């Protein structure tokens, strides 16, 4: 039995993984380089984006497949990329690119001996995320999902601070549970379907008889729980705020972007296969989705650390991402992918601005911090002065139209009101499948969450417009060029896609 392999299609997975190896080898030959690993990483990401780009450019609704087994009556492919998964892959690669831009070493910060390890792990996780979107058999699907997850645990732990370690431990624990659930689910799947393939045919065959159908349903519920951990859907969300707050900011950015892509890709692969089974796992999706939204928004309302706020906002947004999947239609899948893309662009942009502000405040930390009015003693150590408290953003729009405008755009997009039209269009798209399926109660609960979300993001947005706190003006904001580039890319993307959302949605046909 021969397997046909098309390496160009696999480039999206292979390039980051090979890139990760090259980074390590380069580190052996030229140790302690600061910039070289980044350059290698950017090159490998550029190569990687070629494959999904081709899949998107080639045609709408077509799938590109490889690793096909010719022996079957109809060729079965273990790796195939539809336009939706190709877009997910592009978003993952873009997210990794922006996160690396944020991590780009500015003279004194990064300890050089860890740079190559960090870059290598980011590349590996990106390769995993890209792989998940294309995998169509359970084995490689789980392996890719874990390749996307495990490096992140190390990335969170890398700084070695207490906060980082506790974040990493929590992430590790939940990942272990998640792996266990997924492995169990995979085993049940295999027993129920007699095949490792994730496809509608195998599902249909096993759904025909009672006992295997029950087993398959249980397997789906376990899959959902396992993926729920990765997507930080409530009640599997608990690791998110700790990990975000403990991790270095570029890693938190990566976590909020790329690892969500991997999780959604995993969810879509399963849901797509289940479209023939009907509404078995759908009710569970509905419950998880509205629970995460509500919980995420309510807790985010109380956060003063912007990283924690973004972490809880991620939990809420994860609910939105999963929301359209209550309908098994392909339109719903597209809506989820569009929502995820809008979310990743906006969140990564928000994080980029946070990185810029934190860097700026880091330089004025001594001296000026003591003069901030209203700052409690607890704040002084690492609060306002670190640029991570909401208060640090006071008057940002006046100090810098670039950073303030970018953040304003990101926040309004996450809230789903103009001028962040991309977020609004994404929310409309996400709600449509819900109403098309006749989930009234769900729609009303979601409507309540629209209001809550606006309240969450406007708490931050309001501060941007406020006056500078008297006696504490760090002067005009000026970010490191690489961070500024990340902000510029994010703002430009968000702005262009807000004016022409069709450019994004048309990619999916």
């Amino acid at each position, binding site marked *: 039995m021969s397997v046909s392999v098309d390496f160009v299609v696999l480039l999206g997975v292979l390039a980051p993984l090979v890139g990760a190896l090259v980074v390590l080898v380069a580190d052996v030959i030229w140790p302690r380089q600061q910039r070289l690993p980044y350059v290698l990483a950017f090159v490998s990401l550029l190569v990687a984006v070629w494959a999904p780009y081709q899949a998107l450019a080639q045609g709408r609704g077509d799938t590109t497949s490889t690793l096909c087994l010719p022996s079957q009556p109809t060729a079965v492919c273990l790796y195939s990329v539809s336009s939706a998964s190709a877009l997910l892959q592009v978003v993952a690669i873009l997210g990794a690119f922006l996160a690396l831009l944020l991590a780009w070493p500015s003279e004194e910060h990064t300890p050089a001996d860890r740079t190559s390890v960090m870059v290598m792990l980011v590349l590996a996780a990106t390769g995993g995320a890209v792989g998940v979107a294309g995998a169509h058999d359970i084995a490689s699907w789980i392996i890719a999902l874990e390749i996307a997850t495990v490096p992140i645990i190390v990335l969170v732990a890398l700084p070695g601070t207490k906060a980082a370690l506790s974040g990493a431990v929590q992430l590790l624990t939940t990942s272990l549970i998640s792996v266990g659930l997924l492995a169990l689910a995979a085993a049940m799947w295999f027993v129920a379907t007699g095949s490792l393939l994730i496809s509608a045919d195998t599902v249909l065959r096993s759904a025909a008889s009672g006992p295997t159908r029950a087993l398959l349903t249980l397997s789906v519920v376990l899959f959902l729980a396992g993926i729920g951990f990765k997507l930080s859907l409530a009640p599997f969300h608990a690791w998110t705020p700790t990990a975000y707050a403990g991790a270095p900011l570029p890693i938190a950015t990566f976590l909020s972007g790329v690892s969500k892509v991997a999780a959604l890709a995993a969810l879509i692969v399963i849901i797509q296969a289940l479209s023939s089974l009907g509404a078995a796992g759908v009710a569970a999706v509905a419950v998880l989705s509205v629970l995460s939204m509500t919980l995420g928004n309510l807790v985010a309302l109380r956060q003063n650390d912007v990283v924690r706020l973004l972490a809880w906002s991620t939990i809420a947004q994860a609910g939105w991402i999963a929301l359209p999947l209550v309908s098994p239609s392909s339109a719903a899948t597209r809506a989820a992918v569009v929502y995820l893309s809008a979310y990743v662009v906006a969140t990564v942009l928000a994080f980029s601005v946070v990185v810029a502000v934190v860097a700026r405040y880091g330089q004025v930390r001594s001296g000026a911090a003591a003069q901030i009015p209203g700052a409690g003693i607890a704040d002084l150590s690492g609060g306002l002065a670190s640029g991570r408290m909401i208060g640090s953003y006071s008057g940002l729009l006046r100090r810098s139209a670039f950073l303030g405008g970018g953040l304003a755009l990101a926040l309004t997009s996450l809230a789903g009101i*103009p001028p962040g039209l991309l977020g609004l*269009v994404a929310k409309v798209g996400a709600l449509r499948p819900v109403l098309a399926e006749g989930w009234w109660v769900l729609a009303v609960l979601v409507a309540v969450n629209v209001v809550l979300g*606006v309240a969450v993001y406007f708490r931050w947005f309001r501060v941007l417009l406020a006056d500078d706190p008297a006696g504490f003006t760090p002067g005009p904001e000026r970010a490191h060029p690489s961070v500024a580039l990340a902000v510029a890319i994010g703002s430009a993307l968000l702005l262009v896609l807000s004016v022409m959302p069709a450019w994004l949605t048309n990619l999916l046909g």
Partner: protein
Amino acid sequence: MALSLLLVPPLIGGVLLLLVLRGTPARLCGAVAALAAALSLVGAVLVSTGRPRIDTAWVPSLGLRWSFAVDGIAIPLILLTAALTLLVVLHSRGVEPPGGTPATFYGAILLTSFGALATFTVRDAIGFYIAFELVLVPMWVLIGRFGDEHAPAAVRTDAANRFLLFTVTGSAFLLVGLILLVTLTGTSNLDQLAAAAGSSLSHGQQVLLAVLLVAGMAIKVPLWPVHTWLPPAHSTAPTAGSVLLAAILLKMGTYGLVRVAIPVVPDGFATIAPYLAVLAVVGIIWAGLACLVERDLKRLVAYSSVAHMGFVVLGLSSGTQTGMQAALFGNIAHGVVSGLLFMVVGRLKSQWHTADLESVPRALRELSPRYGFALVVGFAAALGLPGLIGFWGEVLSVYSAWTAAASRPSGLFQVCAVVAAIGMALAAGYSLRVLRQVWAGEAASTEGSAADPARDVSGVEWAVVAAMVAAIVLGGLLPAPVLATTGDDVARLLTASSTAGGMP
């Protein structure tokens, strides 16, 4: 082309002011804003004669279209919005806006105007929602950032947030309603939806849709008991913000009822119309009573807005052509009258540093006769004096409730008509109370009073005020042009819904 001239200048002007012209002096910003508003007004005049239409795809996968058109129902509102934007910009001339840069101030005004104009011209259900939301952030900035400098920051923030959250709550209902509508009917084209008049929907679906859509609009209108965001928003907003809020933003709610709710789900609307009428008259009485005891002049005008919008909603819910006409006319009348009142009251408040009726200087007729005259005309129109613009909308609205459509419970509507008439008497009561306190009264000796001697209005500002006074008188003497503009389209709308909806 004319539509672009209407919509593009405020958008470009607003964005330009916010992004490029930050930090330029107030005079230049005001000139840029005035130019944009003037171009937009030219566009408004052109679209009301040419009635053009734009329709291209925008987001095909969602069926979202870039669809704009103009008809008789929208024309008076478009003209009102464009004209008032220009007047507001001119009226703000020479005033350094407190709390922020002039560029942000004028930019927010222009963007609010853009959102309103887009709402009045858009013909796509989802596009309507987007346009409806466009005004949120700029208006929120106007209230929270440029609000009354006498109010503490916490009060301003609270007012701005209340405005934002109430409106967003309404919008969330509206969003669910509109998406449901589009999903059930398969089109988001408002003209097609109005032509079909809900014939493809069951009665239950129509009622559900009507409840969702009307709930969304009712907060914006605002209808009692969800009006509580309006008085704080008005009393803290700067004069320009108050004028835009009262004259334009509230109209978006009633316009939405006329455009999106009534013709699209006529059966459903007929079912909930009695409840709506009751809420409207409760609001009329409630606001009238509040006005009788309210001491803050700006809040008083705000409450009177609630009463006036109650008349508009009463007219809409009557289901007759007279009622619709009365509502559309009442919209315009309230826009002009409340615009004038907020301009005068806002300026007086900033001169007196107080708007408390008990402590303001008396005898405005002697201190500043022109302001006094404008105030008299404004409140006379607000109480519905015949010969002024406020009269037609309210009288016709009460009349339409008395002779409500056959599908409405006539007894209930006649009771509503009587109660609304009592509300008109209340309006006379509070209007005369204000005039007695402020305009008449004995001039107290200015010695010992903390208030500045009031300066009278002059120059451009006087021209702005005079133009609005003229509009009030002209609209009162010659209501026919406005009624004729809206008449045909209202009639068409009602016949479409009665033939397709199977109503008599």
